[in-house]
């Protein structure tokens, strides 16, 4: 019965996070929680053949709790220990607040700062999103063994570091939200630009967006969560206009703005509004402000560069980095002219010596001042790793060469 499989799959996917989060509180270990959930999902396939329950999520939760209880009873008997907890402890009522806490606990555990970014993403995709090892491997263009290794190592770190499956106190909340957002943002960017291959990219992006929405529901007073959601929504709205038929990236200036997804743009604008109401001026909110200035411009030529430069100025104070300085220099060149942009680039030559986009930006500014962009384009091509970006730079170089040839 194809229908039944679809219902089970759907329920398992959507309910997974909140149920595993609840089990984590009861079981005290990720492995035990995942095992209990897995058992319940298998039981559902059997039991729902007769009759699909009216509330499949609640059914799955009850079944998973029971299977967690059984597992513990078996363990207690096997280890001949007195039960540490009474049965009653297991019957925690599910209120919206406990469910929210459970979910948050799960996300924070998977995105714990003690784990490396790759391990955080692999664990989040596996445990929170319910991706299979194979799916994750495909998304990251690596072997299943690598993914399994990452997940294993992440779980070991959690156990060794006694990371604790606790929802952080209010004081630590912003920091932990920051760590979770960094994971979701990395996940989104992996889907957006990617180190290689287009396969599964949009899935990764959609999942990051879904989790960002969820996080906003869980911590509705954290402006940075809404800032990050806005950036992702703006990015997703443009996703299908960023690559041409040959797989080459289309720069923002040349994208067909009429094809941007209005619903996602609205979602981004509403999220940014929430971030503004909360008085947010953190790195994600500032980047969302910049992205908003871009997506609301009717065309590239009417972009509000003054607003963008001002936001970059603040961003450079809040979270200074050479890449932020590079983007600011590009905006400055648009606002005040290429000479000003080149002046702003001067200090970045050393820190960004290996970054292809530095040379691509300088080539553009040089060309606008009447200079020769070719050496910088050649350096950029030699440094670019993304195949599409490399080919686009090659095309630019080719066009310049053609134009230089005497007619």
């Amino acid at each position, binding site marked *: 019965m194809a229908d039944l499989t679809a219902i089970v799959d759907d329920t398992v996917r959507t309910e997974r996070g*909140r149920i595993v989060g609840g089990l984590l509180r009861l079981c005290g270990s990720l492995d035990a929680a995942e095992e209990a959930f897995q058992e319940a999902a298998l039981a559902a396939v059997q039991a729902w053949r007769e009759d699909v329950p*009216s*509330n499949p*999520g609640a059914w799955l939760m009850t079944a998973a709790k029971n299977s967690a209880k059984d597992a513990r009873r078996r363990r207690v008997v096997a280890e001949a220990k007195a039960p540490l907890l009474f049965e009653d402890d297991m019957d925690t009522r599910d*209120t*919206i*607040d406990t*469910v*929210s806490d459970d979910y*948050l606990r799960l996300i924070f555990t998977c995105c714990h700062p003690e784990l490396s970014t790759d391990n955080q993403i692999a664990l989040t995709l596996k445990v929170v999103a319910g991706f299979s090892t194979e799916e994750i491997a495909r998304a990251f263009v690596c072997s299943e063994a690598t993914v399994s290794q990452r997940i294993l190592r992440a779980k070991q770190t959690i156990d060794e570091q006694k990371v604790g499956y606790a929802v952080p106190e209010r004081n630590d909340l912003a920091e932990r939200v920051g760590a979770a957002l960094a994971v979701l943002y990395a996940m989104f960017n992996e889907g957006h630009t990617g180190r290689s291959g287009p396969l599964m990219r949009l899935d990764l992006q959609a999942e990051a967006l879904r989790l960002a929405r969820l996080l*906003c*529901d*869980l*911590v*509705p*007073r954290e402006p940075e969560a*809404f800032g990050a959601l806005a950036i992702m929504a703006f990015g997703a709205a443009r996703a299908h206009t960023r690559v041409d038929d040959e797989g080459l990236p289309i720069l923002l200036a040349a994208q067909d*703005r009429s094809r*941007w997804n*209005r*619903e996602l*743009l*609205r979602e981004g*604008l*509403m999220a940014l*509004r*929430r971030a*503004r*109401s909360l008085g947010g001026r953190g790195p994600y909110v500032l980047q969302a402000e910049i992205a*908003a200035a871009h*997506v*609301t*411009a*009717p065309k590239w030529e009417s972009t509000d560069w003054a607003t963008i430069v001002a936001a970059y100025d603040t961003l450079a104070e809040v979270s200074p980095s050479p890449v932020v300085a590079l983007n600011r220099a590009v905006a400055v060149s648009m606002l005040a002219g290429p000479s000003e942009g080149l002046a702003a680039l001067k200090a970045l030559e050393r820190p960004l010596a290996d970054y292809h986009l530095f040379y691509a930006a300088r080539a553009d500014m040089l060309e606008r001042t009447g200079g020769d962009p070719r050496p910088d384009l050649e350096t950029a091509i030699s440094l670019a790793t993304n195949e599409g970006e490399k080919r686009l730079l090659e095309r630019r170089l080719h066009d310049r060469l053609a134009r230089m040839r005497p007619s």
Partner: protein
Amino acid sequence: MTEYLVMTREDEHAHASQSPKAMSELIEKSATYADELRRAGQLKDSGRLRPSKEGKRVRREGDRLEVGDGPFAEEGKALGGYCWVQASSFDEAAELAAKAPVLATDVIDVRPVMKGMCPKDKEAKPGKIFACAVLGSTKTEEAWVEVMDRIDEETRGRFPEASFLGGLRLEPPSSGRRIVTRGERRAMFDGPFLESKEVIGGLFFVRMTSIEDAVRWAAETPFVVHGALEIRELWRT
């Protein structure tokens, strides 16, 4: 001071096809409008609803529960947002309402509030926030009032529960006023507006993890026995 509910009935197609720039300007203007009312001490609460195509309408027909999926754009218009305001007279409330930033295709309804409990910072709590519009569909105003009375009677004492975030009951539709934008001008009409299939009798807010949970909860309430409940997620603003 009397309380009024200012509701926008939006042409969702017009909103969806706005340019991103116009979209952003309307969002910001609406926020400024609400801020000004708040500073003047005239705003009790306000909210914007996500598109009605994400919403559900729940009613009970005998033993059967009917759950309808959005969009619910009757006469091309769906509930888009609200401001719960305080004013010294109906005319003042209507004046405030007429200043609300909307598209030329939208309609504004002003209705006096019979009674209500104002949600306190409802957007600060975790979960999704849903606006539930209590709807009645009857031919006459007397019958409509009777339906609302019955719902009121049977839901008394049911609240508050953990998920409840406050809400209000409106005076009958004949006490309402409708503002229509025509180019630069705004024209006003007095109620009742029973020509609409479903007339709103109240609005309240609940906090749930998903719209499916909200529908399951609604299925057990008197709202869906005597009338219908339109459940719509609110944007956090």
